[in-house]
């Protein structure tokens, strides 16, 4: 190869940039990230670097986003499956945080967040499952709400105030599930 045909430093830099762009495309296709923070948290989880905090941060991010979406959506008129999916993922992250926790304090923090997530999730399911007077309650949705509340109430280290709110919610779900509440 003569000197004229040999690529210069600028051309090498161009090939490097092309390789980097191609690699970025392949990684984006394979990993399917959905948020810049999610990329950082997933890298921390995969690398095993402070997995507890990474799981808590990701759970908090998903929970915050889901509650914001609930506030914006019109109850009963929109499909909330995306929001339920977010809450399910958030709950999964808090469960992972519990597994990664070291000591009582960390475990309790994860439990409190998990309990809060379950409360919001079950309340949304209760609202969806109970319609206006002319429409019957959706028992399947209400049973799901009941299962979510039961999971939260099974957590051993919730705060007293949280437990009272969850028990109250469970009572409301049970009333909605009972065909003749007056009896």
């Amino acid at each position, binding site marked *: 190869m003569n000197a004229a045909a040999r690529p210069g430093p600028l051309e090498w830099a161009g*090939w490097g*940039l*092309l390789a980097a762009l191609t690699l*970025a*495309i392949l990684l*984006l296709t394979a990993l399917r990230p*959905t*948020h810049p923070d999610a990329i950082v948290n997933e890298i921390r989880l995969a690398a095993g670097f402070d997995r507890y905090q990474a799981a808590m941060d990701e759970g908090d991010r*998903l929970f915050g986003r889901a509650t914001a979406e609930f506030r914006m959506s019109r109850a009963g008129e929109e499909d909330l499956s*995306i929001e339920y999916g977010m809450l399910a993922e958030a709950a999964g992250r808090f469960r992972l945080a519990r597994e990664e926790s070291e000591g009582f304090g960390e475990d309790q923090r994860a439990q409190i967040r998990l309990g809060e997530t379950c409360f919001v999730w079950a309340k949304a399911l209760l609202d969806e499952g109970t319609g206006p007077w002319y429409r019957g309650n959706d028992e399947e949705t209400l049973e799901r709400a009941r299962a979510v509340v039961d999971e939260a109430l099974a957590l051993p280290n919730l705060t007293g105030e949280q437990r009272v709110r969850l028990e109250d919610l469970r009572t409301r779900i049970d009333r909605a599930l009972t065909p003749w509440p007056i009896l």
Partner: protein
Amino acid sequence: MLATCLWLAATVLLGGFDLPARGYAAFQFAPFGLVAGLLAILYAFVLAQSGIVRRSQGWLDLLLLVYWTAATAMAFRVLLPGPGLVQVALVIGAAVAAAILAGRRDRQEALLWLGIVAVVLAVLRFGLVPFFEARSGLPDWGPIRLGEAANAFRDVFVAYAPERPAAQAVHFGALACYAMALRTQWGNRTDPVAAA
């Protein structure tokens, strides 16, 4: 050749980004599907035959073709609306346009036809479909849930997923990169179609 590949890679990168209006995803990177991919293979062949795309030699030619096909597929992903009857009609229309493109003897005319295909698809995808989606909803009248029925009926035509306004700027950037890649092919050389 390197500049062309860089513009095409930028097209694939930018064209893959979606910014959904709802849900927890701040962004999504979605690769092109089978329909856009097959259409891109057809168009890559036509672009090479009509002389719009300059061919290279050896493995560089193969590399260039891969980038052209991927970028064209991503451009179609950007321009085609969601799955449904509207997409079926547009894909058939785009395939027919490829035949028209292949029949052009003049390189500039062929390029103009490519631009027309892109503009027609863009108008339908970004103008007409959101317009009808926003105005064809029905309210629920008490126990009669007309809204759900209207949504289901609309999905037969287009499975519309609303996006944030910034998505249009990103997708325009992708198509601009594709146009720049075509611009790099506008070198000083003889037209193979005319030369033949």
